[in-house]
């Protein structure tokens, strides 16, 4: 048992903190996914991505040949924690590419695909930005129910259908697409393949889904006779569902540490605010901060344990679901309690975070408005709890 980081990780942590101090405006603070919404935020995020790439951090755990530097999972955890804490934008470049397209390509991609796409992602350039086309209007929690078709015609696939809740589609150069290639398969799960689609292809239309708080995070993406070469197929035809289940674990695994880092920052900011405003002298505020602090520290331990399991070469099963549900719970608490601490000031629109009424750069409010949506974006908590029940506790299917 040992709960301290090695010297290498601590040194990296210092480097990243220095980077944050140098590259980010004073008091910088933002909410995950927010950076994709406005053009200026996105441009800034991409400028940072480039710098992160230059430092070798963007895809640090990848092998050197693909633009990584073979960093350990512990180094990556430190990197993600710190970038979450300081709100370093561009860390994920719209998430998909860095978090699961890359790792999936390394597992299932052809040599050609690896050589083409991995260095692009690692470069931190706009051409390395991906979106992920899984959800459809009638396939949310029930993902295997997708209807988008990809029909093989000679050496091409012709794609028709609609995706929805596609985050970063308006920023992405590529789409990591799940489509039905064998509609007659006996089981839903055996119908699906993964294809790579150039978002500049003819027939691709992106339609923004602005949320109630005014953020443009999600999109609808329409595919109208979109043609892609057969080399766009990732892995085996009709094995897509199984490949995706694996990449889903990556998705969730990588969100853990940055979620923790972000939550810790909000907590620290609220503590600071409460001290500055003397609210800290109120007993109810003290209790609330104490309760949040417990949850945040628990989260740190849980995400570390997941990394530890992966670092031993074991595949995480229920842990990423556990960590996601926990993160959602912590963020809900931070958002609700945080707005209670800010009081009437928490009404300020975070899109006007520079207004003089805004506190803590609007980060608590933006978390409050976004957390119900963020928590849904990678699978509802109900679905995650089903996974915990089945894989963590060996319980029978409940849906």
């Amino acid at each position: 048992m040992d709960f301290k980081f090695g010297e290498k990780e601590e040194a990296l942590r210092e480097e990243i903190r220095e980077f944050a101090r140098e590259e980010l405006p004073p008091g910088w603070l933002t909410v995950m996914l927010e950076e994709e919404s406005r053009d200026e935020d996105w441009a800034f995020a991409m400028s940072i991505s480039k710098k992160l790439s230059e430092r070798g951090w963007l895809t640090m755990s990848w092998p050197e040949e693909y633009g990584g530097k073979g960093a350990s999972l512990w180094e990556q955890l430190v990197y993600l924690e710190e970038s979450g804490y300081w709100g370093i934008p561009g860390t994920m470049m719209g998430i998909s590419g860095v978090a699961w397209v890359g790792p999936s390509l390394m597992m299932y991609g052809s040599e050609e695909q690896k050589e083409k796409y991995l260095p692009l992602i690692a470069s931190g350039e706009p051409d390395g930005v991906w979106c992920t086309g899984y959800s459809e209007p009638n396939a949310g929690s029930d993902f295997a129910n997708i209807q988008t078709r990809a029909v093989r015609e000679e050496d091409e696939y012709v794609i028709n259908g609609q995706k929805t809740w596609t985050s970063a589609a308006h920023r992405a150069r590529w789409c990591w697409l799940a489509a039905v290639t064998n509609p007659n398969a006996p089981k839903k799960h055996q119908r699906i393949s993964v294809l790579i689609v150039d978002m500049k292809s003819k027939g691709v239309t992106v339609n923004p889904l602005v949320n109630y708080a005014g953020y443009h995070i999600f999109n609808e993406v329409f595919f109208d006779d979109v043609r892609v070469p057969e080399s766009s197929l990732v892995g085996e035809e009709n094995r897509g569902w199984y490949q995706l289940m694996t990449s889903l674990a990556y998705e969730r695994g990588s969100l853990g540490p940055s979620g923790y880092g972000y939550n810790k920052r909000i907590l620290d900011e609220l503590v600071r605010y409460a001290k500055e405003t003397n609210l800290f002298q109120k007993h109810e505020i003290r209790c609330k901060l104490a309760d949040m602090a417990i949850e945040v520290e628990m989260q740190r331990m849980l995400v570390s344990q997941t990394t530890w399991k992966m670092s031993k070469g074991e595949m995480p099963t229920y842990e990423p679901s556990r960590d996601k549900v926990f993160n959602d719970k912590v963020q809900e608490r931070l958002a609700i309690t945080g707005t209670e601490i800010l009081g009437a000031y928490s009404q300020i629109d975070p899109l006007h975070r520079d207004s003089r009424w805004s506190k803590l750069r609007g980060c608590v409010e933006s978390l409050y408005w976004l957390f119900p949506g963020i928590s849904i974006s990678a699978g509802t908590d109900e679905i995650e709890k089903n996974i915990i029940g089945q894989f963590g506790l060996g319980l029978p299917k409940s849906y």
Partner: protein
Amino acid sequence: MDFDLSGDQKILQTSVREFLNKECSKDKVRELEEDERGYDIEMWKKMAELEWMGVVFPEEYGGTEGDFIDLMILVEEMGRYILPSPFFSTILSSLSILEYGDEGQKEKFLPKIAKGEEIWTLALMESSVTYEASGIKLRAIPEKEEYILEGTKLFVPYAHVADRLLVVARTSEEKNPKDGITVFIVDVAKTKGLEVEVIPTAAHDKQCEVRFDHVKVSKDNVLGDVGRGWDVVNFIIQRGAVLKCAEMVGGAQAVLEMANDYAKERVQFDRPIGSFQAIQHKLADMFTEIEGLRYLVYEAAWMINVGSPSDLLISMGKAKANEVYQRTCIEGIRIHGAIGFTREEDVGLYYLRTKAAEFAFGDTDSHRKQIAIELERS
């Protein structure tokens, strides 16, 4: 005991609901969010024609002699349709004129309000954003027949379109911060030195900062007694809290109905999602909480109506409403899945109003404290 509305009250409720259903669609709400005024003048006129503004006034002031329950019914329906309008602040101001105004003030102001000719609002909160008396720092310095007001008010609803403001000011520094407070009626059109700026809230609900730079108010425009203004404030907070609760009950009910309808329609894994216990039991909990809250609020309103306002019940209602409205919206969004996150789906409109409602007339902790004080007394 009778939980029912009277026949007249049911008619009122139905007519309000029908009117708002027609006039206050969610598209209208969205439109008014973007509108500079933040309310619809034509709709306002119609509301006045329906005699909503004067619902609690005696006939002599142009009212229809309704009671506080009638008003509560109105406001609950407005909450259900999240009507953007200065009705709430106007009616609350008029309630305090009715209670604390002298005959001249009543005659002068109430008929105009009843006709929908004047918009009023309450300039109460300051930078401490609490309802504690110690938060009132705006100074009113007597000078001959006038007072000079200096200071800043925050989160004043619809101040940018208001004809008159009720301004809570400090006329003297006393040991007890509740003493030395005076309420002024400020005529916006005739007053210099008033600067109003709309605060960019998430709900776009036109709450304003109002800056008083050497603003002169005649001594005739004091409401109630000089130095005893906290009584008026207390009256406003009591009534305001209960009416805000009613509004929140209406909103929560609307969200529950939306989520419930969605749960019946939306199919995943070949079943309506409402047949999954995780969803169904959540809806059952929301339903129970909203029903309990509603009766709690009705009871508090009824006590006011029979002339025995209960601080205990009012605080119970507001503390609970804060919790229930927020929880209902959050779960309502979740039940809708990703669709609930969009601008097009109505549930988000309600969610965006949770924080404004929560902090109006006392946050949860302040009401908990009040409840404890009442328990200690008992």
